[in-house]
């Protein structure tokens, strides 16, 4: 017997059995009690959702409205601003730094998302088999997810330190030259992509693993009996069955990459030069380093727009995937 029965008995109203054993959707009981209950409990949903609603109002909705208002203002410092119409949006069109930031965002996203998903899928397929110690392995791959972005940032900055970092020390011990890693505009982005992929593969693995476990093993066995090779089974059976998961993971990873801030902020701060300034870095930089709040707000809304497009794409993709199945 579940705890519900006991608590109700303790409330002194009914024997435990009648409550938990009630048939789902007992129509008689619902109907007779309906109108009375509705009158009595009308305030209840508002009470339950009230705290969330108030917090949402104060710390989400109001700031968003202020942000939209700011995007039509020119503000030298905090507070006072003058209305400038769509000037901030017009500035965006001819801002070479914004172009760089958008390009970097594309490079960063295209570098991180497919790589992390491919490695995650490979690990999931491998760990879906009965292997010795697979529980431990799964846990190990997942561990980087636990570390804060700042922690990842400082560890990786240290590992890739060009003078004393273990990466270059190892390369030099092997007789190879060290690499500049984060200190050169040519290698900084690649290094960042590497680090972010590292933080992300555990997540992709877990999601893929969950999806793989829901594929009936009879299917794979049937395919094997029909003479399909391992690769054919993967290509023709596993990959199509995973398509809905892949589309969800794709959009999620894109959103993660578009919002990736802490690691980049700690490791490069967008530099050297502007080589790792992605859009979200540029928003932050405009607001706090350049003190252009209005422009930063407009840039931020551009980012929201991009995120919205991806979310809508994802909804369509998932719907399509559902129709196919």
């Amino acid at each position: 017997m579940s705890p519900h029965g006991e608590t109700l008995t303790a409330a002194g109203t009914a024997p435990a059995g009648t409550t938990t054993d009630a048939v789902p959707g007992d129509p008689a009981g619902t109907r007779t009690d309906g109108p009375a209950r509705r009158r009595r409990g009308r305030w209840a949903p508002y009470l339950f959702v009230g705290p969330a609603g108030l917090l949402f109002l104060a710390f989400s909705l109001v700031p968003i409205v202020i942000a939209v208002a700011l995007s039509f203002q020119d503000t030298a410092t905090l507070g006072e601003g003058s209305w400038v119409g769509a000037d901030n949006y017009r500035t965006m069109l001819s801002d070479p730094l914004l172009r760089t930031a958008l390009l970097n965002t594309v490079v960063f996203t295209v570098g991180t998302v497919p790589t992390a998903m491919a490695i995650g899928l490979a690990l999931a397929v491998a760990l879906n088999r009965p292997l010795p110690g697979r529980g431990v392995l799964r846990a190990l791959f997942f561990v980087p997810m636990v570390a804060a972005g700042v922690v990842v940032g400082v560890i990786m900055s240290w590992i890739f330190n060009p003078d004393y970092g273990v990466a270059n020390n190892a390369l030099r011990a092997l007789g190879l030259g060290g690499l500049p890693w984060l200190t050169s505009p040519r290698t900084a982005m690649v290094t960042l992509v590497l680090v972010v992929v590292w933080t992300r593969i555990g997540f992709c693995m877990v999601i893929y693993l969950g999806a793989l476990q829901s594929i009936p093993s009879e299917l794979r066995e049937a395919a094997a009996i029909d003479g399909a090779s391992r690769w054919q089974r993967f290509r023709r059976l596993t990959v199509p069955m995973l398509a809905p998961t892949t589309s969800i993971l794709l959009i999620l990873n894109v959103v993660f990459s578009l919002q990736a801030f802490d690691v980049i902020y700690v490791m490069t701060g967008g530099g050297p030069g502007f080589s790792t300034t992605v859009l979200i870095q540029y928003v932050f930089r405009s607001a706090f380093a350049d003190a252009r709040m209005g422009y930063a707000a407009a840039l931020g809304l551009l980012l929201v727009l991009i995120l919205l497009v991806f979310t809508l794409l994802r909804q369509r993709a998932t719907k399509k995937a559902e129709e196919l199945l």
Partner: protein
Amino acid sequence: MTAVPVRPAPTAPSAPTRPGGSPRERRSSRRRWLLTAALTAVAIAVVFPLYWMVVSALTTGGQSQSSEFYLWPDAPTVGNFTEVFATQPVWRWLGNSMLVATVGTALSVCVSLGAGYALAKYRFRGRGLLYALFLVTIMIPIQVTLVPAFLVVARLGLVDSPWAVILPTLFDVVGIFIARQFMLGVPDALIEAARLDGAGELRTFFRVVLPSCGPLVGVLVILGFMNRWNDFLWPLVVLQGNESLTVPVGLSTLTTNPAFSSPWGAVMAVATVAVVPLLVVFLVFQRTFVQGIASTGIK
């Protein structure tokens, strides 16, 4: 799970699994061990950065500030820990982080449970609109609302207090979403039965609905704690005095702190202190942890 027979060549004719001892079986087991070995190598590479964090925290400045390649310090020492704890308010940072994470999580879980219940189990005016508005905020990165939210917090006179960190993060869309999904699965019959028995709305929630939400609360607590413990940008903006920082913010100030001749040992010591509590939580509650992170993915 049933083992799928391993097929060495794509051209292999179809045949059911043969009883043990056949060459194919032996080859299959060899391949399994090879695969395990390869995966272990990858796992070591994945865990290495965290291992290196601990090693660097235990290495003297002399050895770590050199171009020598080593995997374990010649003379492991806790000197980095004692130095950084003596010169920086690391205990205060830990205390602040603990306060923000525990109080914030406790309150936020209550808010999410209530909102999730209302959105899942009541029909009320404006429900659809409210839920849609909630969900849209998932897409709004914090950088966009950073300045306005700071203005709100400043107006409330909270800057530099732990409440400046706690209050704005109490509204947690993902938590509300997970709570709603879970509560949709709580049978209506259970709730109706409680009402039939004369239980009020609040009693129904606390005595009937909540007790069946154990796994949900587990996921919310772990996710909430992890996100608050790791949170960086918002605390960075609203906390100012060195004494009132949380661990990640304090950590980020160390890399540029001129007080350290070799900051990396100190940085790695604080990084270790920042990660270990979460690692312990992760190892103890691994299942809930993974479930929680996975469920944020499948929204």
